[in-house]
């Protein structure tokens, strides 16, 4: 019954491939970390300040945030109108299907959203164009209408590492700015019985978000 390991010389020769593949797995991560350790990415430690809103730990019911994979989430409440909230969710990378309002990302319940038309908005900020898309969603919860507006931030991060800069430029050449990290902002409002009320994110907030330094994290 000749089974399996039957030629030790061939066996040992084959181990060179194993050693090489192990070395690649271990070494490449280390090399890349070392090579790019001086890149300019840094974590967004400070919460972006939005005039007229203050930060809160979490949104009140019925909002239940479920954004797997998000790097950071900030929540705010309007200092005047306590029924208005802002939620900012930051993804380090462009995430497929990770829109704020989708069947995968749930805010309140699942798949009960009515989605309006998507409108592209361009804001000049920081020496470049920031492309946002604006959508109005409606969701009936416990007799309330929740209206939200979603914006996708598609600005590009910067780096001082020349190779990283070239790679990012290459990425943008192929994919456009949509391939960059993304930040989503929502204005949530409990609109009660006023179904027609559809507040949009005020331009001031827009500019704050566009100006946020998004040189982020690893």
């Amino acid at each position, binding site marked *: *019954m*000749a*089974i*399996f*390991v*039957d*030629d030790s010389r*061939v*066996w040992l*020769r*084959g*181990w*060179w*491939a*194993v050693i*090489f*593949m*192990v070395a*690649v*797995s*271990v070494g*490449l*991560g280390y090399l*890349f970390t070392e090579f*790019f350790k001086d890149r300019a990415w840094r974590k967004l430690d400070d919460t972006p300040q939005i005039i007229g809103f203050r930060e809160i730990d979490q949104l009140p019911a019925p909002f239940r945030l479920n954004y*797997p*994979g998000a790097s950071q989430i900030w929540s705010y409440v309007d200092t005047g109108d306590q029924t208005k909230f802002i939620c900012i969710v930051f993804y*380090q*990378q*462009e*995430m*497929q*299907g990770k829109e704020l309002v*989708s*069947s*995968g990302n749930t805010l309140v*319940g*699942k*798949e*009960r*959203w*009515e*989605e309006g*038309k998507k409108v592209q908005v361009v804001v000049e900020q920081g020496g470049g164009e920031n492309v946002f898309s604006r959508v109005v969603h409606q969701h009936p919860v416990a007799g309330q209408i929740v209206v939200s507006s979603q914006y996708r931030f598609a600005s590009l*991060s910067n780096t001082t590492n020349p190779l*990283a800069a070239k*790679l*990012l430029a*290459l*990425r943008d050449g192929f*994919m456009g700015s949509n*391939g*960059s*990290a993304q930040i989503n902002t929502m204005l949530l409002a409990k609109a009660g019985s006023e179904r027609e009320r559809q507040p949009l994110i005020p331009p001031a907030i827009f500019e704050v978000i566009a100006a946020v330094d998004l040189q982020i994290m*690893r």
Partner: protein
Amino acid sequence: MFSISSTLAAKRLIGLLPLILVYAVFVIFNYDFIEPLLVNWWSSHESSQGLMILPVSVWLMIQQLFGRRALTLEPVWVMVLLFMLLSVVIHVGAIMHIQVVEFSALIIAFAVIPVALFGVRSATEGVASESYFPALYSLMALPLWDYINPVFRFISLKITEQFLGLSPIPHYVEGYRIELAKGVFVVDDGCSGLRFMVSGLAIALLYAYLYFDTNRARLLCVASLLLLALVGNWIRIIMIVLIGYITDMQSSLVHDHATFGWIIFAVLLVIWMFWMNRLERRT
């Protein structure tokens, strides 16, 4: 009897040690990239089939290796270099912040490892050639399906529109919004039916590989389930619109119908399996 089977199992395990070692090191040192992939599969309706496809692919590769008389390392250096290239691409993808590149390179690297270490044998005298299918099957888990989603979303809209056009139901279609007298439906990304198609394709390819020998039968096997998954999704959308119309949008199905879609898919899958079973016996 016991000692022979336990000896065989032990030798198999020893033979697989290099594979286990490379997989373990690869997973540990790339865990930062693997974790988001697992989270994505776990939390996404559209790509959750990856959780099944990759383990099945690795299992098929190991089963194929167990068919050998002796499990010796037969490195394919082109594949070893491809593994190195993919490892670089994983890191470059991370720096460029392109998750689809990271995920794709990870999945392909996973499939390349057994091929790089043990190769895929051609036919020799008295022994049939091994198949590349087990390795290629893992490509089904690549996160590229979303790119064709808009096409199937559009087709779903048009089919629904055609049906409503033939029915007496008053309606108005604007973009992907279907307005009825009592409410509005939106043909969402999730209504494309892509999730059922990809799941169907994964099942049909596996079935065809395991149970059919002729290309004609394999083609029939795969095409039929693809078509059934697509038609099942159209039936789902049309039924939901009808239920919404009849119940004045009060039915719970109007608001949460993902499970409803899987039930229709499961019923069609059982019918398909009976059919394939008959086809298998005939061929």
